[in-house]
């Protein structure tokens, strides 16, 4: 008896799923094949190999339409990778507050590398200006300072982006599991599964999650065509996006764009599990702290005073 019950359950679930989807089919009968596929696309982690290949083909075609057009025929075709996490790797980040001058070059490099919308603007990194006398005080910081005169007298700077929490409130609050932590510790979003409810924006203590309030716009010749499914591929309107440590780069052994561009060397990155990594060196030899430690999010993003 219990055997047949156990067999029954998934069947019933599948049946109800099919029923709901069948109802939707009738509504979508008039839509294009591509729209229909997009509508029924399953969660990234539930896609079979064959389905994933199909999805990638569709998404690459869509992304290429943004880079190559009649007005811009010389653009390159987009390639969307799905490189998995490397075994034995947990990425971590360290940022030297005594070196950062608040120039915002990291913000700019991040926008370009990760295909963030230029209109309306989305920035995955927010640089906060704080008063030296006040110490690290996020709530009384200023994100809107003018960067051509930095560092301003009496101030220091604290860039904040996704802290890649080990116990991420955003992952916890997502009602459909569209955001999760990868085995290498990167918190990612499936832009094709996100419903845009913005629970994660409410639950993130670091302002690291950003919503596409309008259709994102990027000039075709500025689109970075080296993409990752869970990273910098073009996002549709109505979904959430965030820093992924440049997943399309770091999984190929490259530094994140912000680390590479930083003119002061404030940014350190590496494998927390590798005793010889830069980030490990910082943790061992400098005193580090994490942001809002009282919230129990356990970030893998460390701040330190190098000088």
């Amino acid at each position, binding site marked *: 008896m219990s055997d047949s019950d156990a067999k029954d359950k998934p069947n019933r*679930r599948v049946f109800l799923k099919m029923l709901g989807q069948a109802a939707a089919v009738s509504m979508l009968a008039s839509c294009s094949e591509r729209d229909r596929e997009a509508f029924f696309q399953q969660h990234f982690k539930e896609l079979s190999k064959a389905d994933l290949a199909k999805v990638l083909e569709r998404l690459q075609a869509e992304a290429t339409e943004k880079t190559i057009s009649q007005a811009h025929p010389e653009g390159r075709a987009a390639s969307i990778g799905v490189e998995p996490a490397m075994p034995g790797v947990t990425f971590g980040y360290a940022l030297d507050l005594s070196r950062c001058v608040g120039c915002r070059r990291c913000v700019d490099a991040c926008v370009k590398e990760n295909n963030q919308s230029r209109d309306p603007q989305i920035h995955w990194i927010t640089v906060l200006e704080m008063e030296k006398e006040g110490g690290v005080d996020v709530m009384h910081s200023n994100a809107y300072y003018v960067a051509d005169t930095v560092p301003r007298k009496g101030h220091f700077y604290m860039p904040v982006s996704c802290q890649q929490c080990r116990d991420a409130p955003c992952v916890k609050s997502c009602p459909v599991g569209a955001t999760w932590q990868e085995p290498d510790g990167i918190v990612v979003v499936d832009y094709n599964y*996100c419903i845009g409810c913005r629970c994660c924006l*409410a*639950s993130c203590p*670091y302002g690291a999650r950003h*919503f596409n309030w309008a259709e994102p716009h990027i000039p075709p010749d500025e689109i970075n065509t080296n993409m990752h499914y869970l990273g910098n591929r073009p996002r549709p309107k109505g979904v959430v996006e965030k820093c992924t440590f440049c997943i399309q780069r770091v999984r190929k052994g490259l530094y994140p764009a912000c680390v590479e561009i930083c003119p002061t060397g404030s940014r350190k990155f590496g494998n927390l599990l590798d005793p010889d990594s830069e980030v490990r060196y910082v943790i061992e030899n400098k005193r580090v702290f994490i942001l809002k430690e009282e919230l129990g999010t356990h970030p893998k993003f460390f701040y330190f005073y190098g000088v």
Partner: protein
Amino acid sequence: MMFYRFVVGSLRAIVRGPKLYYLWLLFLVALIAIGAIGYADQLKHGLVRTNMRDQVSWGFYIGNFTFMVGVAAAAVVLVIPAYIYNWKPIKEIVIIGELLAVCAIVTCLLFVMVDIGRPDRFWHIMPFIGNLHIPSSLLAWDSVVLNVYFVLNLTIVTHLLYRAFNKKPYSKRFATPLIILSIPAAVSIHTVTAFLYNGLASRPYWNSAILAPRFIASAFCSGPAIILILLQLLRRYAKLEIKNEALSKIAELMAYAMFVNLFLFGAEIFREYYSSTEHLVYTKYLFSGVDGHRSLVPYAWLSLFLSGGAFLLFLIPSTRRHPVGLNLGAFMIYGGVFIEKGIALVVPGFTPSTLGDIYEYVPSRVELMVTAGIYGIGALLFTLMVKVAVPIMGGHLTIDTGSKRATTAALETPQPVT
């Protein structure tokens, strides 16, 4: 066959009505049209048409959602005395309360629907067909309890009315367990909705254990306030027999609920202002403004004035028995709680943002239009359901009258000449 007659009889009751009824329907359809225009604009351009942004990422839609969850949950305040204590004067009122709950849940789901960035993926969050992230996500839980509550109330009320239509008493074996189950279900929808905010450690304004009790207390004020107004309208226009005794009893219950609500609010205010930590800033933003940002201040004080005033009106027996005092109090409570849940709960939680940024949010034109449209849909649904329920409850619409009219109507209809 029997159910077919029920449906036909119901449809006939919906179609026929006096001029005022049609005018009312026309008004609601106009509201819905306004909402549809606003929503079309939002669908085309995205949620950028609202005034929500990354700093204040939930606004008027989610505020209204929260308020209506309260209204839906409040049906229970009437179910308890009616069925558990078999308190006669409220019994008919319960059916109205349950219809209201059903319509309120529909508006709740619509408010979530218009708030999400990808309404085409709404099915991802529906039980069975979607992919609910349970147990960790509170919004996933909310989807479950709201759907359960919806099905439960719809089943109960359909059963009661269908039985009455067939001139049979309702089945106690079937209905009573469901009615009893609807009580914890009502508590659960409001508790889970409170937990949605309450569980976010990143937002100190909401991260208070007192939030769920406050939600329930305020829901027990606002829900009955609507019912109080509706019952008087039904008494006048639908000739539903409702005793004054029942009305003032509801007002008395509301006075107690408002006392608890104000007490919990006072406890919260004491903690905030006396300890005066960094977390005071959100409450300050609401009641006195921060750095010259004061857009919510008048609403906050208005809400407090309305709730406090209504409490006094309902506390004193002579004013709550007087029709003017009763209605004034009901409107004041409704207004007070609407501001409290619709604006004063959501927006200060986000202001300032987690990185100290102050973005002053007020609803945009599109948000107001869409909200009006959703209330239009809810009110239309409620009107049509009440239009059917009232004659059934009064014994004017039964299986006999339904079929009799059906035959006469058939005779009167001229047959097409072939």
